[in-house]
């Protein structure tokens, strides 16, 4: 739909968004990420069908999970450079919390890798990311099917609590092993006059979910009202 800038009043003064090259790059990025998480989804399904149980499915998708979840760090760069209009801090926080769970908890504490809680959050992440990255892909191409938009702003009702539960249970499961081995911990005395107790740190991380999760959840609910509330305007246009 082409409209003259004047028709929108002062809308043309709003931020201009990514240029053509940046848009092409972002489309490729989002397509690759969608494909990556689809690979993980398929991997989980195939492993389940082959084994006949939920147990230990993490090992079948360990490598693509690490690769694609870590790759999301690029999204922080996208915000910093300005080709994506999100806050660097917010994106950084979200991506790093995922990376933290992937590497500093699940990868680092082998004993939790066979826990069902890992499957719980991996499944939540997989479904969320497939929807999210296809949402971005279609948005960039200006052809966003209402179904994808609806899915993005509706599935989170279940996926958020599911992911949070999986994450918290996994961290909790890791605690005794961290305490026993002193993983990532530094004690006094040492020449830097510094100490760090990873066990206590993990407990603090768990507590931090209490203020943070409701804020994120209600933010999505508010976004949902704003985005899906314009159903009448959009359905005719698409």
């Amino acid at each position, binding site marked *: 739909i082409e409209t003259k800038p004047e028709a929108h009043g002062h809308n043309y003064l709003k931020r201009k968004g990514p240029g053509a090259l940046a848009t092409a790059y972002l489309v490729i990025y989002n397509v690759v990420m969608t494909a990556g998480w689809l690979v993980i989804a398929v991997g989980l399904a195939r492993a389940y069908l082959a084994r006949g149980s939920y147990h230990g499915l993490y090992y079948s998708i360990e490598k693509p999970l690490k690769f694609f979840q870590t790759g999301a760090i690029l999204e922080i760069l996208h915000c910093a450079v300005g080709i994506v209009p999100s806050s660097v801090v917010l994106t950084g926080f979200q991506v790093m919390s995922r990376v933290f769970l992937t590497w500093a908890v699940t990868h680092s504490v082998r004993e939790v890798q066979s826990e069902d809680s890992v499957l719980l959050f991996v499944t939540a992440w997989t479904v969320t990311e497939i929807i999210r990255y296809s949402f971005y892909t279609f948005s960039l191409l200006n052809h966003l099917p209402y179904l994808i938009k609806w899915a993005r702003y509706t599935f989170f009702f279940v996926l958020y609590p599911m992911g949070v539960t999986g994450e918290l249970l996994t961290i909790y499961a890791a605690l005794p092993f961290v305490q026993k081995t002193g993983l990532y911990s530094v004690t*006094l*005395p*040492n*020449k*830097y*006059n*510094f*100490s760090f107790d990873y066990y206590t740190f993990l407990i603090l991380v768990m507590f931090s979910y209490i203020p943070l999760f409701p804020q994120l959840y209600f933010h999505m609910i508010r976004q949902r009202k704003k985005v899906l509330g314009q159903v009448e305007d959009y359905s005719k246009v698409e």
Partner: protein
Amino acid sequence: MKHVEILDAKTKDKLCFLDKVEPNATIGEIKSMFHKSHPQFYPARQSIRLDPKGKSLKDEDVLQHLPVGTTATFYFRDLGAQISWVTVFLTEYTGPLVIYLLFYFRVPFIYAPKYDFTTSKHWVVHLACMCHSFHYVKRLLETLFVHRFSHGTMPLRNIFKNCSYYWGFAAWMAYYINHPLYTPPSEFTNIQFILVTLEFFNFCQIGNLSIHIALRNLRPPGSKTRKIPYPTKNPFTWIFVLVSCPNYTYELGSWLGFTLMTQCLPVAFFTLVGFIQMTVWAKGKHRSYLKEFRDYPPLRSPILPFVL
């Protein structure tokens, strides 16, 4: 005689109508008049502007010099609860002073009970306590007797943010420096080294104070004028030749000295975070100087000579 109407910037509701206002009345005086009809909005929390989304007018602006007709229409925005800068500074600086001493004297419930009320056997720990305490006493005295603030107040929520920062870091540093298992600088860094760091710390403290006094003297009491700072007879101010905000330069120096003296990683973190924040402030100040003064000395850098 002019009339003044004040509308809410968001809802455009008419909040107040003042008739028969002197043309030479200032915005500050208009704020006081608005305060009378709306006692909950004391002048410090009023933002008065010509345009709902425009910049705030200054208290010193005079009514007849503004682009308004016989009836001036202003827009009001509530800045939220305000607290005075002096109050914030006094609170945020008293905390570290007291908190550090609690750790220094090894008050119960911090370290193992057998260490309660004992003192460290390392003389550098006593030295560090003196330096840290001196630093915050200096800051408190400067707040009371030296600084001249452009704005009287800041938003109330800042006091919680600022105190968390200062008090939190003070506790974190003090815990390790005064810990029974503290490791002083090794035998390779001997007494000379510690004394050099002490001298450097003192040098930067005096430097920082000199800059604060020089900046104060730029501005007569009660005024809000801004002038370019220049080197004075005091050699510690000669750094103005190369730097716009040498107070921050000296402050960085002090904390570097303290870091080297104590060889404590949390102190290094505190120095780094402070340096980042002061660099942001220095760049902003440097930019305002350049914008305001055509003849601003081109050799100057914001905080580090030639570098940053």
